[in-house]
């Protein structure tokens, strides 16, 4: 085949290239720049090699916030994925109920993150908030601004409220794409409801669930706004997840070098976990 040579085509490519350069490559390179050097302002830089990386990798503070981060992410995945599937299974498959359920389910997803944080903050306040006040009236000693357990409970509850819908919608789409003939075939075999779920529905939902887990992992691992507005990372450092800790280090203490090194490590952890997970899930899907 003869290729037509047309240099004007560059005009279509260059804008995208410039845009990506400005919003991704250049900022990332700035971070890389800070991660390997020491600066005292005035654009004076001194080479530090891998010193900041070593410092972060050995710092207890980083280990603690990384630990909190993993714990938080695993808890919300552990709740949201099964809960999302369960809700999707109970949703109507046809009729007027479908659009109603879909709209109701999408509502939390449409609310801006800082609004979610503020909403839950007020909702959970022990003196005036509906949730906080009710819990205390029922005899629970609940105060998320002072007790670590309560702070975690509220943060997790907020995230479950905000994001389970995403898992529901993805699972629902997966379920809807299963042809009715599968259910009939299982009925003819006399398969139990549980067998239908594990042998037909789960395998057929595998791809959307992979996407759901990936999205929820990435989002929850990078969570910032909601806990920042709700608890500000407190009490103490109890809900200071990676991103909150990072911002404290970079903008609070102005430790630019260690903060830059930490963001790169952070970035590679997300990348690595996603890659490993995706590769494992898609291993046997070669020819589909």
């Amino acid at each position, binding site marked *: 085949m003869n290729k037509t040579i047309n240099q004007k085509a560059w005009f279509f490519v260059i804008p995208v290239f410039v845009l990506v350069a400005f919003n991704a490559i250049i900022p990332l390179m700035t971070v890389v720049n800070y991660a390997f050097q020491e600066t005292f302002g005035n654009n004076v830089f001194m080479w530090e090699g891998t010193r900041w990386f070593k410092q972060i990798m050995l710092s207890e503070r980083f280990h603690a916030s990384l630990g909190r981060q993993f714990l938080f992410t695993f808890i919300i995945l552990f709740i949201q994925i099964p809960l999302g599937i369960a809700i999707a299974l109970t949703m109507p498959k046809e009729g007027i109920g479908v659009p109603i359920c879909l709209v109701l389910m999408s509502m939390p997803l449409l609310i801006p993150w800082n609004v979610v944080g503020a909403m839950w903050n007020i909702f959970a306040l022990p003196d005036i908030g509906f949730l906080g006040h009710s819990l205390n009236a029922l005899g629970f000693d609940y105060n998320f601004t002072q007790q670590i357990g309560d702070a975690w409970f509220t943060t997790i509850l907020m995230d479950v409220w905000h994001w389970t819908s995403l898992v529901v919608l993805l699972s629902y789409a997966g379920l809807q794409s299963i*042809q009715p*003939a*599968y259910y009939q075939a299982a009925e*003819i075999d*006399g398969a139990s409801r549980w067998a239908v779920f594990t*042998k*037909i529905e789960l*395998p057929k939902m595998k791809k959307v669930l992979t996407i759901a887990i990936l999205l929820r992992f990435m989002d929850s691992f990078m969570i910032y706004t909601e806990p920042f507005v709700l608890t500000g990372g407190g009490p103490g450092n109890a809900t200071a997840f990676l991103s909150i800790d990072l911002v404290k280090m970079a903008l609070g203490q102005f430790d630019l070098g260690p903060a830059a090194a930490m963001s790169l490590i952070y970035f590679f952890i997300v990348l690595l976990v996603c890659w490993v997970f995706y590769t494992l899930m898609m291993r*046997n899907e070669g020819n589909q």
Partner: protein
Amino acid sequence: MSLELKNVEKKIGLDTHIYPTNLKLEKNTINILLGPTVSGKTTLMQIMAGLDKPTNGEIWFNEKNVTGMKVQKRNVSMVYQQFINYPNFTVYDNIASPLKITGVSSDEIKQRVGKVAELLKLSAMLNKKPNELSGGQQQRTALARALVKDSDLILLDEPLANLDFKLREELREELPKLFEDRDCIVVYATTEPSEALLLGGNTATLLEGKVIQYGKTLNVYNKPNSLVSAQVFSDPPMNITKIKKSGESCSFLDNSVNWKTKINIKDGEYKVGIRPHNITTYKEGNNSLEIKGKVLISELSGSESLIHFTRGNLNWVSLSNGVFQKNVGDEMKLYMNADEFIYFDENERLVING
């Protein structure tokens, strides 16, 4: 063994999906439900299987009323147009699945799966998963699942429709053999008349939720009880024209074609059905009746020529052996044999054929 539908009717809301139907299917027969899409084949099969309940009427199996009995208790198998297998099971486990649930011993499962797999040429791929197989092999696996169980009733809902041409031909030839020596009733739904003729057995022609005619396949084909039945059982579509008869002489209403007849029906107007392969581009035996037409489309296959042509304001189809290249718009002569005409009265009921 027999399966009997007594006045079975199916309504959903105000729509009637199946009009009251009586049908008796006998042991060791292949019964073909032939009809275009949405003629009610699938609904009828689901009612037969017990996957769906009729609104009115009864289903009797072996002289026992089984209306409303659950499908698991009826010992039926079904094969669908889509290739339905358990996605996470190997071919072996898929074929074994109906047996495992009923608690057959593992030695017997092994032996029976092996036998069915061999019959369906799946022996080499027992350890593969369905998504590693071709469409044809996936459908063979689904067929094997249906056959392994020794069902009393095997339902096949357009099982070949999603396969490509070559695989379809291959599997179609094997199908009748698969059901030989089996103590069961086979019901096979299809939209293709040629498939019904190939499988033999009995055929029920269906249209818009009504069973038009049921009987031996060749009988239904040769003696359609009505124009509708003939149309359902004709691909390419049957040519229909009005004629008038007085005494021994017959002619098209426009007098363009005349012939003598010895058939003994009263004088008057009739509709005549002529199958496309009874109109040819060449004279053959007794088909001396000549008509003229203008070529609309000519489709050639390796050995046949399908020529669509117009006469007046009617479109006709002819199917000839051999390859005849015709140009669109050409005037041409075609030949037919009045003995092969099928006569219908004003109510479109069969009067006589030939």
